[in-house]
């Protein structure tokens, strides 16, 4: 079998999510990933026009137990059940597995359900709540953000990029968020505000870090054939790819580009398009340097050029390549890639209101992390 045989053969037919902004304003220790996932599932099911009995595959992420989740959703005998570890890299991977399952017939309709109660539960993503790391903790080294800070410092040294390049990106994403009623952070940001913000781990500031907030997202995946019977216009998976970057640390001297190249080569050849054909990109922004390294790693611009390339409105509303049109993880919601997928689908359906990208036909999702993944989706 050739990968291009799978092009356009699977589709996302339902997306759903909880409110993000409202939940952020009201912390609630009783809130949990199951109820958040359930709410998103109900919403995605409604969006797809399918009924619960059509779902015969369930993949969950960041929700601890598939049994409990399926009991709550009343899905008793799915033909496919799985759980992916609670890491953001897994959203793209989950969609890819769902697509493989429906393409092969191992399931007909897969619900991918995600729930995140990190805000109410007080998640910190670093420090002594994590398992002891003998080669890092004694020096005070912790958190993936610090690894991105190391990579960005090196990138600035090697290529002459700068701290305010990240400010350009932060401001652009916030512009999109200001047009997104569900975004957690909607107040426009200026370069002065960005530059005077406190450092979390120099050279990264608070605006370079993803939010921590509660929410749930669900995607429903089926075959292209079945998709035609669903309520809304299907969003086809043209290409999908992953390649890992397994190294001793979260940072790596090649910036993760070796893995990104493998992913890019496969996803573009499978989809039969290239970076120039992408109408908007949803790029995993756990920390803003990840977006810059991705733009370079996928060939949107040459290595070292992202700082210059994103200027002049290119990635902003109305630009040549709008990036993170919901506001992304730093301004809309930290749903570990899941909400970026939902945004990709809604952009392709033309459901994004003020922030809608004109004539949006092809969207790319990119996540660069210890497992890099990418999809190219079309309407």
């Amino acid at each position: 079998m050739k990968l291009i045989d799978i092009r356009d053969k699977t589709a996302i037919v339902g997306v759903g999510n909880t409110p993000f902004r409202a939940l952020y304003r009201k912390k609630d220790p009783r809130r949990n990933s199951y109820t958040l996932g359930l709410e998103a599932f109900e919403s995605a099911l409604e969006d797809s026009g399918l009924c619960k009995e059509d779902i015969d595959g369930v993949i969950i992420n960041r929700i601890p137990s598939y049994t409990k989740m399926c009991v709550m959703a009343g899905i008793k005998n799915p033909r496919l059940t799985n759980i992916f570890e609670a890491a953001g890299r897994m959203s793209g991977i989950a969609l890819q597995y769902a697509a493989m399952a429906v393409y092969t017939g191992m399931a007909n309709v897969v619900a991918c359900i995600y729930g995140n109660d990190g805000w109410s539960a007080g998640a910190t993503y670093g420090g002594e709540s994590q398992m002891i790391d003998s080669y890092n903790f004694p020096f005070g080294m912790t958190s993936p953000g610090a690894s991105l800070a190391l990579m960005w410092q090196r990138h600035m040294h090697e290529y002459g990029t700068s701290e305010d390049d990240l400010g350009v990106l932060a401001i652009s994403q916030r512009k999109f968020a200001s047009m997104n009623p569900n975004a957690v952070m909607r107040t426009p940001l200026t370069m002065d505000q960005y530059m005077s913000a406190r450092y979390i781990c120099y050279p990264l500031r608070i605006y370079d870090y993803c939010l921590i907030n509660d929410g749930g997202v669900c995607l429903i995946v089926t075959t292209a054939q079945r998709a035609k019977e669903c309520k809304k216009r299907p969003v086809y998976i043209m290409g999908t790819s992953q390649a890992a970057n397994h190294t001793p640390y979260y940072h790596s001297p090649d910036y993760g580009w070796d893995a990104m190249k493998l992913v890019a080569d496969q996803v573009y050849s499978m989809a039969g398009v290239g970076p120039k054909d992408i109408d908007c990109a949803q790029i995993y922004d756990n920390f803003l340097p990840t977006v810059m390294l991705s733009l370079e790693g996928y060939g949107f611009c040459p290595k070292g050029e992202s700082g210059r390339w994103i200027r002049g409105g290119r990635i902003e509303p109305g630009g040549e390549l709008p990036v993170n049109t919901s506001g992304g993880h730093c301004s809309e919601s930290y749903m570990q890639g899941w909400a970026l997928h939902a945004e990709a689908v809604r952009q392709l359906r033309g459901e994004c209101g003020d922030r809608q990208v004109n004539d949006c036909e092809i969207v790319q999702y990119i996540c660069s992390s210890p497992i890099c993944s990418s999809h190219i989706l079309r309407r």
Partner: protein
Amino acid sequence: MTQYTKPLPIPNDFDRPYWTALKKHELRMQKCLDCGEIWFPPNPVCPKCLSHNHQWIKLSGKGKVWSWVLFHQLYFPSFSEETPYNVIAVKLDEGPLMTSNMVECNNEDIYCDMLVEVFFDDVTELITLPKFRPAGRPKEV
């Protein structure tokens, strides 16, 4: 001596020689006797050829700052007094990349590709941490 409150390593069966060598003020890492690979962090087998034959060789202790950061966020309360504190990623002359702190140098004076040499910091009676200082300074007394 005041109580040391920062996080400490927990030596395990296969990295104990690393910590034992540090105690003697030697930076030792594993070198594969079959393919010559030198690796870090410690690993039970050679990650390049999976050979079980390795030797804990003594390294020069010299390297370059691949990159560096300053922690402003207080993830470890025990670091509060020196926040913001530096963390460096050192590319050793022998190849491996390791995490450490720069000592005997102001944070403002650290830069990428700076030449450094190991400095053994006896933080407790049992544990010595490999830190780094600018290369070429007079040896510790």
